[in-house]
C-alpha cells in the first residue's frame, strides 16, 4: 500500500496541517485542542450545548474519516472543520428556528412596556438580542450560516467561502444583503405573531 506523503510545495503549518500521515491520533489531538472549544461555543449558540457536544464529536469523526480529502493548499483546516460542522448542523435547522422564536417571544414584554417611550437606544441588549432572534429565524439556512460563521465563529469571508464551498464574492454580497435586511427588519421583530406555526 502506498502512504501518501505531503507534496513538497504544500505549505504545511499549524493552520494547514498534513492530516494524511500514519499516526492521525497525534495530529487530531492537536486539532481537537485547538478547535473543539471554539467550535462547541459556536454550535452551542446555534443549537444549544447538548446538541453541540454531539456535533463537535461528529465533526471530528467525519474529519478523521475523511482526513485524506483535506488539501492544505485549498484552505485552512479551520474552514474545513466548520464546513463539516455546518453541514451536520442542517439536521438541527428546525430546532434552531424553534429556539430562535422562543427567544424572540421572551424579549417581547420589555419592548411593549416601552412603547410610549419609543427610543430604541434605551432598549437593552437582551431585547435587541430577542428581536434579532426573531429576525434570524426568518433567514434561510444559508444566509444564517454566512452571517453567524462571520459574527459568531469569527471566520473571515475567505474562510467562510472555503467552508461553504462558494466564491468569496458571493459570501461578501450575501453578508451585505443579510446585514442590511436584518438592520431594517430586526427592529420590527417584536413578535406579535401567534407562534403556533413553528412546528
Amino acid at each position: 500500500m502506498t502512504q501518501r506523503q505531503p507534496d513538497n510545495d504544500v505549505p504545511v503549518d499549524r493552520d494547514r496541517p498534513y492530516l494524511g500521515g500514519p499516526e492521525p491520533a497525534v495530529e487530531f489531538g492537536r486539532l481537537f485542542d485547538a478547535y473543539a472549544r471554539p467550535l462547541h461555543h459556536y454550535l452551542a449558540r446555534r443549537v444549544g450545548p447538548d446538541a453541540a457536544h454531539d456535533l463537535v464529536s461528529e465533526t471530528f469523526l467525519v474529519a478523521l474519516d475523511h482526513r485524506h480529502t483535506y488539501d492544505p493548499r485549498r484552505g485552512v483546516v479551520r474552514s474545513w472543520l466548520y464546513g463539516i460542522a455546518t453541514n451536520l448542523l442542517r439536521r438541527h435547522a428546525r430546532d434552531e428556528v424553534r429556539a430562535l422564536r422562543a427567544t424572540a417571544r421572551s424579549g417581547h414584554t420589555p419592548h411593549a412596556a416601552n412603547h410610549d417611550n419609543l427610543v430604541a437606544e434605551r432598549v437593552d441588549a437582551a431585547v435587541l438580542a430577542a428581536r434579532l432572534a426573531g429576525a434570524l429565524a426568518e433567514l434561510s439556512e444559508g444566509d444564517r450560516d454566512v452571517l453567524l460563521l462571520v459574527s459568531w465563529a469569527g471566520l473571515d469571508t475567505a474562510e467562510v467561502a472555503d467552508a461553504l464551498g462558494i466564491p468569496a464574492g458571493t459570501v461578501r454580497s450575501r453578508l451585505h444583503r443579510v446585514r442590511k435586511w436584518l438592520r431594517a427588519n430586526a427592529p420590527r421583530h417584536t413578535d406579535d405573531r401567534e407562534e403556533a406555526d413553528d412546528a
Partner: protein
Amino acid sequence: MPEENVHEMWSDQHLDAALASLRSDVDADARELARTRTGLLAAAGAQPRTPAAAPPARRHWPRWAQVAAAVAAVAALVTGVLVARPDGRPAEHGSAGHGGDQPEIADAAASVQLNAAADRIHAADEPLAPGQFRYIALHAWWASFVDEPPGYTWVAENLLETWVPAQEKQQWMWRRDVTGKRKWLVGTEAQARAHGIEVEGGWPEGVWRAPCGDWFAKEEGRTPCTTRGSWSSPNEEFMASLPRDPDKLYAALRAVTADSRKSTPDMRALQIAADFLGSGLVPADLRAAMYRVLAKLPTVRVTEKFANLDGRKGTAFGVTDQRERLDVIIDPASGRFIGKRSVVTVADHGLKPGSVLEYTALDTAVVDGMGVRPAR
C-alpha cells in the same frame, strides 16, 4: 398595539451589539469535551486494547449518510472530486419509537436461542501453557464511500492478527494487512479511478509490539498499560469488574446506552456488545453472560437461522434501526462468536436492501509462540 418602530432601522453597531449578546453565555462542559477527545483519539488509532477494531468512522456505517452530507460541505477543499448531493437527504435522529411498535419484552425465539448458545459455552477457555499465546484473527471487509455522483461504495479486505500473552503486561504483537482486495457495491473501480478517487490507503499496515496491546503508547507519550479499560477497549481489570449475573450485566450495558441519541438504545447496545465480543478477549463466563444480556434486548430478532460468515455457519441475531441491520453471528452448537455484519435495509445511494455491506469474522486459537499461526 402601536408600532412606532416599524420604520426604525438599526445601525451596524446595533446589529453587532445584538449579535454579540444573543446566546453569548453558552459554555462547554469540560468533562464532556474530554470524553469526546478520548473517543476521537481512540478512533484515530490510539486504541490500546482493541487491536481488532475497525477504523471507527467505518465501524458503524450508518453514520455514513451524515458523513456523505458533511463531505458535501468540503467540496471546495477536497481534491475536486466530491460535490454536494442535491437532495439533502433528511436524516432524522429520533432515539426511540421509530415504527412505533417496539415490544416491551424480548422476542421469544431470539431469547431462547441466545440463552441456549450461552449454555453451550464451556465454563472456561483453553488455558495457555508457558510460551503459548492466544491468537485472534479478524477477517474484515470494511466499507468506503464517496458521494460524488454517481456515487461509489466499496469494501476492502483487512486481515488483523493479534497474539496475546498469558500475562497482559507481557509483550503483545499485532499484524495488520490491507490485502488490496476490493469489492465494489456501487460503481466500479475503473470508474472511480477515472474520477481521480483514491481507493487505496488510509489504513496503517505493519507489525506492532507492545505490552497490554498498547500499540500507540509511545506516539502519544504514555506509559503502556496505564489506560483504563472500557467496553470498547477491554482489559483484564475492566472485564473482571463486570458482573456475570445477566440482570446486573444488562443494567451495566444499559447504563451506557440509555442516552443514545444517534440510534435506538438496542442498536447501540448491540454495537457495543458486537465490538466487545469481537475483540476476541472476552473470557468464556463473560461471553456467556453477554449472550444472556442480548437475549434481553427487546428488539433483537433471529434474522437468519443458518447464516454463513466467511465460510463459518451460525445463527444471526440482529437489531434493525432506521437505516441498517446489525447482526451478530453465533455458532449455536459451540456458542462460539463468529462475527458481525451490517446489512442494508433501506435502498440508498445505490445500495440495495438486503445486501451485506460490511462484515468482520473472528477466529481464535491457542498457538505455541508469538507470530505463530494455528495449523488449519
